[in-house]
């Protein structure tokens, strides 16, 4: 489903953020991306979600080469993913409901169908009673859950999350992991960057460990 082959990414005026990275992820898998701060986790996720293009090497998503995709085709590729950003990227000028409906608008879903799906997504993350609340009034954990609701509302087949439990306390973090696990159980591919041991110890998932932009180990599920 997702295939990296000898992928290198260099940003202008800096060293290589990723060096010769190769791996592949199958549909329905759960993959952790770990590594120290600045190891290239976010870059790897951005390349996966077609937010950036590799400097060299090929990134294949559903057998399509991102480097060769026309700019006009990129938006449609991005719609396959639900992304939870490290900084949430919530819109603070509108309420929770309006935040979650945005991906549906982009996908051209409107009216009663859209409202139904927004409420279903809010319900899954336990925020249905807060649909009229403004994001700024939510706690950190709630904001994270709102970001997850927005990522899943258009029913993507791949969920990408960049440090979703980053600055949450343990009980909130476990909560969030539970939500992702529920999605993974119904067949959604989950790719999650984390430096947090809690998630790792609790599961038998595959880990892509990055060290200074290089993949140092790729563990397969041990079951």
């Amino acid at each position, binding site marked *: 489903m997702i295939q990296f082959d000898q992928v290198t990414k260099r940003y202008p005026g800096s060293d290589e953020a990723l060096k010769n990275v190769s791996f592949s992820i199958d549909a329905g898998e759960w993959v952790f991306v770990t590594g120290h701060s600045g190891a290239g986790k976010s870059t790897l996720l951005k390349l996966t*979600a*077609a*937010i*950036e*293009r590799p400097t060299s090497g090929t990134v294949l998503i559903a057998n399509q080469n991102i480097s060769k995709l026309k*700019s*006009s085709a*990129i*938006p*449609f*590729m*991005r*719609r396959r993913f639900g*992304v939870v*950003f490290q900084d949430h*990227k919530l*819109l*603070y*000028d509108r309420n929770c409901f309006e935040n979650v409906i*945005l*991906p549906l*608008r*982009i*996908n*051209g879903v*409107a009216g009663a169908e859209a409202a139904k799906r927004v409420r279903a997504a809010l319900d899954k993350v336990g925020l249905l009673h807060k649909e009229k609340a403004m994001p700024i009034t939510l706690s950190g954990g709630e904001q994270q859950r709102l970001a997850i609701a927005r990522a899943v509302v258009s029913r993507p087949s791949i969920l990408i999350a960049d440090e979703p439990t980053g600055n949450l306390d343990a009980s909130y973090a476990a909560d969030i992991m539970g939500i992702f696990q529920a999605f993974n159980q119904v067949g959604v591919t989950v790719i999650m960057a984390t430096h947090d041991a809690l998630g790792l110890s609790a599961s038998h998932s595959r880990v892509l460990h990055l060290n200074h932009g290089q993949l140092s180990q790729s563990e397969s599920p041990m079951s």
Partner: protein
Amino acid sequence: MTNWMNHHVQALKLVLGRMRDNLLSTFMICLVVGVATSLPGLFYVGVDNLSKLSGHMQDETEISLFLKVGVSQETVATIEAALSKNTEIKQHHFVNKDEAWKRFQDESANNGDINKVILQLNKNPLPDAFFIQAKSAEPEALEALKNSLQTLPGVEQALLNSEWAKRLSILLKLGTKIIFVIAALLAITLLIIIGNTVRMQILTQKDEIEVSNLMGATSSFIRTPFLYAGMLYGLFGGLLAIAIMAGIMEAFNLSIAQISSLYSSDFSIALLNPKLFIGIIFTATFIGWLGSYIAVSRSIASFKIN
């Protein structure tokens, strides 16, 4: 198709909602567009009506054809025939010198000084004359006709009493050129004003644009609401311009009606000029669209994937 409709209906709703939330600033922008558009519009109405008025007056212009003193009856008949054949002439009439002399004497009977002079003259100084009305009111055509009549044998002098009309017509042409220059300059100004307004809105919605872009929004999805905003500024501005023009023309018409009645004319400014109004609305809307298109395209270019 329904998807496409949804996209546009939502964009329009979104923009109208934002305009309602910022009613005063929206009104201000529309007012700027309206005032800027009404200026060349008013100039145009002025020049247009002056040309109509000068057209009115040129209807009354005549070519006077004075014949040589002592021309024979045959020559007069030949000229008469030539005038009748000339297709550019609407009508003509002959005034012989005795008739003219008599009329002149009658008309100046009450004026003592002139009467004295007339009495001192013991022979009629006036020539025979034709008075001609041309079909065309164009100064150039009249001039050409006058020159051709001048060459007829037996003609002493052809006089066109519309020199002033010619000058007015040239001035009006100059006026039209000035309107075009003013309109072009104001169009550029409007383009910049609307472009800047939309650019400010893009800045305030930077987060939304960025997030939408990351979630797979197409350029057209991001662009459409701003294009509608620009077009609506143009449309509302154009409507305001028409209201402003109608108000000013109505006020002028009162005075013009008074002046007209002094000259026993029923001339007034035509209030309704659908072509002009549609032109103004269309142009303003187009400028709004273009201004926002330029602004939003520049912004979208910065989101290019690399």
